[in-house]
């Protein structure tokens, strides 16, 4: 069934189709519509779920952890400050190995107050052990919520779906909603081997000495590595029922590209248009969109970038004192290639400033002329 819906509602409908059992959430702009819609869906009896209206995001995550470790499929959504407040519990969810799925609407962190798009909030959670997906459009948002449950439950790790404030959250697009029946087949009921169960009492998370804590961390890393395969496999299975296939990355006209742009999230849609316009002028530009940020698809990124003359990473985020976060990750993926092209970093669109087609074209056009040792560029900043 096709519907014109916002990115926020795509999240809500995705959660509904995944038949989440426990939702715990706290309101924050621009996430509110996600939980408003879900409240409506639960109140109307369209989804058999418990909705805990917690008093903070920290509690939202704690409640999701409690629910998930008791064997329920748990879901939450947040943004920005809310995600930052959850930080402690993000680590807790990973250590407890609970496959909670969360939508994060990428928004700036204050001060100053600003409610617009920026990806620094979720990227600064990169070391928490959460899978992270960055979506391009509302259809992908809905599809990724559903897939994330399957992926996360397979690898026993939590996962985060990231969408951009307003560009996705409040913008309507046509979204195809799959049939519940086919999703039920795709995503069976969550039934973990170990859970809080009076018939089989176990204690979870007791004091663990250095003798085995280390190995438990190794397990998390090895599940993250497994996730690379699981994500591709799940993408294939999902394509079989919906015709829409997603993987770790998304290539757009990269095969013969001299210059490859690298983006994540909503900006990728603009970048694709920029690529088309440049192609019309016979400029060999392509786009690599990073969909899965954790686990990071090093091999895929390496394979594509190494054949270009140069690559430019556009970050709607910054790691202060360093550089763009995607920029760091992409460069690190290429480290082992002896013949790697120059990779340039571009900071753009912080605080929800529009990144226009013209700007992206300017970025691509600047790359062939750039000095190889160029650090990174603040695009369009009045400096």
């Amino acid at each position, binding site marked *: 069934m096709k519907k014109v819906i916002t990115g926020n509602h795509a999240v809500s409908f995705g959660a509904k189709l995944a038949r989440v*059992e*426990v939702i*715990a959430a706290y309101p924050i702009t621009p996430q509110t519509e996600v939980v408003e819609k879900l409240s409506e869906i639960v109140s109307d009896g369209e989804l*058999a*779920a*418990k909705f*805990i*209206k*917690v*008093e*903070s995001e*920290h*509690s*939202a995550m*704690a*409640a*999701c*952890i*409690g*629910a*998930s*470790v*008791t*064997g*329920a499929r*748990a879901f939450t959504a947040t943004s920005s400050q809310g995600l930052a407040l959850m930080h*402690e*519990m993000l680590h*807790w969810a990973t250590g*407890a190995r609970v496959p909670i799925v969360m939508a994060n609407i990428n928004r700036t962190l204050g001060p100053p107050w600003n409610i617009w798009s920026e990806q620094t909030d979720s990227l600064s959670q990169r070391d928490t052990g959460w899978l992270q997906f960055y979506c391009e459009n509302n259809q992908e948002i809905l599809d990724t919520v559903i897939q994330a449950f399957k992926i996360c439950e397979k690898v026993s790790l939590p996962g985060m779906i990231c969408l951009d404030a307003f560009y996705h959250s409040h913008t309507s697009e046509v979204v195809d909603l799959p049939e519940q029946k086919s999703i039920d087949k795709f995503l069976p009921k969550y039934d973990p081997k170990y859970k*809080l*169960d*009076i018939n*089989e*009492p*176990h*204690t*979870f*998370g*007791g*004091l*663990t*000495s250095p003798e*085995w804590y280390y190995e438990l961390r190794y397990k998390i890393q090895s599940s993250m590595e497994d996730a690379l395969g699981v994500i591709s496999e799940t993408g294939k299975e999902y394509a079989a029922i919906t015709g829409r296939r997603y993987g770790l990355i998304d290539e757009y006209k990269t095969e013969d590209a001299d210059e490859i742009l690298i983006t994540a999230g909503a900006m990728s849609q603009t970048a694709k248009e920029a690529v088309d316009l440049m192609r019309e002028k016979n400029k060999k530009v392509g786009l690599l969109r990073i969909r899965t940020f954790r686990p990071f698809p090093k091999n895929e990124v390496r394979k594509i970038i190494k054949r270009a003359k140069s690559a430019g990473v556009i970050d709607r985020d910054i790691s202060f004192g360093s550089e763009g976060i995607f920029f760091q990750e992409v460069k690190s993926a290429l480290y082992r290639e002896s013949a790697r092209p120059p990779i340039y970093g571009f900071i753009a669109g912080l605080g929800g400033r529009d990144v226009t087609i013209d700007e992206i074209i300017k970025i691509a056009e600047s790359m062939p002329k750039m000095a190889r040792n160029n650090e990174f560029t603040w695009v369009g900043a009045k400096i």
Partner: protein
Amino acid sequence: MKLTIPEIEIMSSGHVACQGCGATLAFRYALKALGRETIVVIPACCWSIIDGPFPYSAAGVPLFHTAFETAGSTASGVRAALDIKGIDNVSVLAWAGDGGTMDIGIQALSGAVERGEDIIYVCYDNEAYMNTGIQRSSSTPYGAWTTTTPAKNFKTGPKKNMVEIMVAHKIPYTATANIAFPEDFIAKLKKAKSIKGPKFIQIISPCPAGWKFSSQLTIKLAKLSFEACVFPLYEVENSRYTVKKPNKKTDVREYLNLQGRFKHLNSDAMGLIQKNIDEEWGLLLKKERTSDEKCAETDAKA
């Protein structure tokens, strides 16, 4: 032989509590009261350690160790999962220390009880952060030494009255308990188990290491806290107070003098403590009388 508390032993020996630990007795009693149909959530507190190192546990029931400030919220999640699965014979017990309840965990607790979560929240109160090495909490009483309130600069504010904070949330059941009276604690837990909605019990659990007394005196001190009305035993059921009175209210000095944490106090300070206890005790008895009248009125109207 006649046992006054259930014989069933769910908590196992071999746990790593200090000698004479009051908090451990409290947990042993709690499981005797609630039985095996219990899921426990424990935030950071002495019990994070007492329970034993992985892969062992003294609990005997399913237990989830959670972050310091999340007993109320994690327990809410557990309850929600049980509800959605239609499991209705299991009590969810949040088991937290005074710091995890009254300081860092008060927000999640307040949120949980305000939402009316069907959980039993027990605060085992040893009046300081004992697990981290005896730092003052908002439950530390006036006059007490702790490592962050040295004798020269002892704590001068009163102990936070958590029971009244819970009562203000209009929850169906709030009570205090004392490890010296396990029959009473067990009866209160059983009552709590039978009531739907949020229940809060604060149990005084003397700590030999933190209060500086010799381990065999744990029960004696707990008893004295009741007899001197330092830690009164009472229940508040739907706003009605029921206070258990000692046969003879004793002088607080007997209680204070047995503990190293009060040994720096002069007679003026001890006199002030006595005066405050007398006032608080009078106030509590007044609350009992007025709540009884009010409830009687409401009952009559109904």
